[in-house]
C-alpha cells in the first residue's frame, strides 16, 4: 500500500499549481464554440493539461500516458474555480474510438477540432424500440455509389441541438445476426433530411432530442471500422461513458454543499444538522461515499499497476455512483422540506433550484448510459459468472 505519488511528481504538481493560480480568474464567455472557449481549450492543450497523451499530429499535447500526472491535474483543477477542460460525448467517446479504430484521414479531420471544442458531437444510438436492447436497432443505411443513405429514427439524442456531428449506429447488413449487422457512421448534423425535434424532460429543460432521418446522404468513407463491426466499435468506448457518469470526487463536492445547507437551514430555529435523524442520514451517505472513494483509488491503482485486477470494482461504479448521488440530492430536498420543492424563479428558492434539478437529472442518469437493471445483469454475468439472460424465441 502506497498512496504517495512519489517525489518525482513534486515539480510537476508545482507547475500545475502555478498555472492554476495564474489562470484561476479566467472567465469564459459566449456559447459553446465561442472564440474564448476555443482559445481556452487550446491553451490547456498547449500546456499539456488537456488531451495530454493524444499525439501532436492530431491536435493533442503529445505527452506520455502518465495516469498520475492526469490525476494531479484533475486534483489541482478541482480545488480552484478555474474553468475546467470541456467534456461531452465527442471528447469522451468519439475521440478514443477514432484513436483506436479510425482511419488516418478520420483522425486528421476530426480529432483536433473536437479537442478544441470547435466540433461538438452527439451520440445517435437509442431508438424508440431499441433502448436497453440496443443491438436490435432498426435505423438503416444503404450504400448508394459513394454515399450512405440513412433512414430511420433516433431518440434521446442528448445535445443534438448543439452538435455539428453525430456518431450513429445503423443497420447496414439486414440479413446478418443482430450484433453483426450494425455499422458505426459519422453523420454531419447539417446534412439534408435530418428533422430534429427537442424532447422536453421532467426537469423542464430540453437537453435531448428525437432525430427523424429521411434519405440522409453522407460520404461512404464516414464509417469507423468495417461494415457490420459497429457493435464492436461502439462497445470499445461505452465503458468510458459509464465510468464518467458518477465521479465520487464530484459527489464529494456536493456532499460538502449539503453539509453547509444542513447547517444553514433551520426548523423551529434549530439547525437541520442538529436533528439526529437528518444528521444520521447525512452520515450514512458520507459513509457510502467514502467506500466509493476507496473503490476509485483501487481503480486508479489498477490503471497504474498493470498486474492489478479491478474488474468488479469498475463494473459497479455506474450503479453505485448514480444511486448515491440521487439520494444525496434527495436528502437536501428533505432537509429543506416544503422549501425544497421550490423551482424555477420562485421566491425563497435555494441555490437556484439546483437540488431539485440534480435530483431529477440523476434519475435520468440511473436510466441513461445503460439502466441500472442492465448494470446488475452485467455485474452478475461478467463479474460473478452467472448465466446470461435466456434468449426468447423470435425476439
Amino acid at each position, binding site marked *: *500500500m502506497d498512496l504517495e505519488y512519489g517525489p518525482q511528481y513534486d515539480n510537476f504538481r508545482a507547475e500545475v499549481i502555478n498555472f492554476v493560480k495564474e489562470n484561476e480568474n479566467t472567465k469564459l464567455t459566449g456559447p459553446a464554440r465561442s472564440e474564448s472557449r476555443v482559445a481556452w481549450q487550446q491553451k490547456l492543450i498547449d500546456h499539456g493539461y488537456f488531451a495530454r497523451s493524444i499525439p501532436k499530429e492530431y491536435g493533442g499535447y503529445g505527452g506520455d500516458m502518465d495516469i498520475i500526472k492526469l490525476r494531479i491535474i484533475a486534483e489541482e483543477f478541482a480545488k480552484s474555480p478555474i474553468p475546467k477542460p470541456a467534456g461531452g460525448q465527442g471528447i469522451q467517446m468519439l475521440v478514443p474510438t477514432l484513436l483506436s479504430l479510425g482511419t488516418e484521414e478520420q483522425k486528421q479531420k476530426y480529432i483536433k477540432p473536437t479537442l478544441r471544442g470547435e466540433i461538438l458531437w452527439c451520440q445517435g444510438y437509442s431508438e424508440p424500440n431499441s433502448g436497453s436492447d440496443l443491438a436490435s436497432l432498426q435505423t438503416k443505411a444503404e450504400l448508394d455509389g459513394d454515399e450512405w443513405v440513412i433512414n430511420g429514427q433516433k431518440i434521446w439524442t442528448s445535445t443534438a441541438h448543439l452538435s455539428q456531428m453525430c456518431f450513429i449506429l445503423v443497420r447496414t447488413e439486414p440479413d446478418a445476426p443482430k450484433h453483426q449487422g450494425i455499422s458505426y457512421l459519422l453523420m454531419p448534423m447539417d446534412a439534408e433530411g435530418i428533422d430534429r425535434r427537442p424532447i422536453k424532460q421532467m426537469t423542464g429543460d430540453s437537453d435531448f432530442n428525437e432525430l427523424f432521418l429521411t434519405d440522409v446522404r453522407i460520404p461512404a468513407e464516414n464509417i469507423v471500422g468495417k461494415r457490420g463491426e459497429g457493435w464492436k466499435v461502439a462497445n470499445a468506448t461505452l465503458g468510458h461513458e459509464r465510468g464518467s457518469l458518477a465521479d465520487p470526487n464530484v459527489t464529494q463536492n456536493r456532499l460538502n454543499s449539503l453539509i453547509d445547507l444542513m447547517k444553514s437551514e433551520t426548523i423551529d430555529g434549530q439547525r437541520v444538522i442538529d436533528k439526529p435523524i437528518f444528521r444520521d442520514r447525512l452520515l450514512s451517505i458520507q459513509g457510502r461515499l467514502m*467506500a466509493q472513494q476507496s473503490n476509485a483509488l483501487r481503480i486508479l491503482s489498477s490503471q497504474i499497476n498493470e498486474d492489478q485486477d479491478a474488474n468488479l470494482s469498475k463494473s459497479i461504479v455506474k450503479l*453505485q455512483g448514480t444511486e448515491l448521488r440521487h439520494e444525496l440530492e434527495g436528502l437536501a430536498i428533505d432537509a429543506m422540506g416544503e422549501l425544497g420543492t421550490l423551482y424555477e424563479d420562485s421566491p425563497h428558492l435555494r441555490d437556484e433550484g439546483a437540488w431539485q434539478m440534480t435530483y431529477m437529472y440523476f434519475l435520468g442518469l440511473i436510466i441513461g448510459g445503460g439502466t441500472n437493471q442492465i448494470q446488475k445483469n452485467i455485474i452478475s454475468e461478467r463479474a460473478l459468472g452467472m448465466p446470461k439472460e435466456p434468449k426468447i424465441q423470435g425476439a
Partner: protein
Amino acid sequence: MYFGLSEEQKSLEENIQRFLSDNASLDIIKAVANGDEDKAKEVHKGIIELGLSGLIVPEEYGGLELNMLFATVVSAALGSGTAPVPFAGSYIMSPMAINLAGNAEQKNNWLPKIAGGEVQVGVGISEYVGAREDAGIEFTNGKVSGRSLFVIDGKGADAYILANKSGELYLIDSNNSGIEVVELTTVDKTRTSIELILNDVDAEFLEGSKDKAIIEKVLDAGRLMLAADTVGAAQVMLDKSVAYSLERKQFGRLIGSFQAVKHMCAEMAADLEPCHSMIWHAAHCQDNVPEEARLMACQTKAHISEVGKQVSKTATEVHGGMGFTDELGLHYWFKRIGLNRQLLGSPELVREEAGKLQGFDQ
C-alpha cells in the same frame, strides 16, 4: 502509487485461510458452537503457531511488529472462516493498549507473553463507547469496582484491560480476588463473551491512558478488526450464494439463471466490493494518515456493518429453506456479522461520533 495488498499480505491471508479450511472445518465450528472447548483450544493454538498473537507486538518484545493493514488482513481471513478464536481484543487491542500506555515494567511483563501466546488479555471498553444498564467501573486508591459488559476475548483470560467512562485504562490480573465472571451467551457461538463484576479488585493504571488519544486509537483498531471480520465473512456468504445458485435447480433451471437471484447477487457484490478497498484505506490511514484516521475508522465500522447486515440477509435468502437450517451452517456467518455490528458501537452510535469528529454539533 499502489493501492492494494502486497504479496506478503496476500500470502498471509492465504496461509490463514488454508489453515482454517484444514483445521476449522464446518464440523469443527459446529462442535465448538455446541460446547466442545478442546476443539476451540486446538484452533487457538494453531493461530498462535502462525504468529498471530504477536502480530502487532514490537519486535523488541518478541512480536512481528506489523501494522494495522496486516491486522485487518488477518481479521478478514478469520472472519471468512468464522474462526472460533480470540483475536481483536486479545491480540490487537490489548497489546496496543499496553504498548502505547503501559510503563516499561508493564510492557516487559505482558508483551512478550502476549506475543508468545502464553497469556490472553481481554478488553472491556463497551462502557466508554456507550454504557448499557448503567454499567461501568470506578478506580480509587489502586482498586477497581463496578461492572463491565461484553469484555472482548475475556473468557479464560489471564488479565483484563478495562476503561472507565473517561477512557482511562486499567490492567487487572484475573487471579486477583473480588472478580466475578459471568458468561454471556450471544447468538455468535464462534466467539465468547463475558461480563465482569468487580468488587475492590487490585488494578494497575496504564499511565499513558491519561491521554485520551490512547483509548481512541485502541477503539479505532478494535472497530477496524470487527469491520474487517465482517468483510471477510460477508464475502464468503456472497461466494457461497453464487456457487449455490449455480448448483440448485428449480423450474428446470439453475436458480442462478433467474434475474431476481442474479440481481440479489449483483447488489451484494456492488455493496461489498468497495468495502474491501475501504477497510484497506482505513487501515492505511491508521498507519500513515493520523488526521483522517478517526473519521475513517468510524465510518468504516458503520458502513461495513450496514453492508454486512444486508449481505447476510440476502445471501441467506438465495439459499432458500436451506439457508435457514443449522445443517448448512450459513447462520454462523450471519451471526458473526450480527455480533460485529453491535460490538464497540452500533452504526448509529458510531455515526454520531463521526458527526462530532467533524464538528457537526458546533
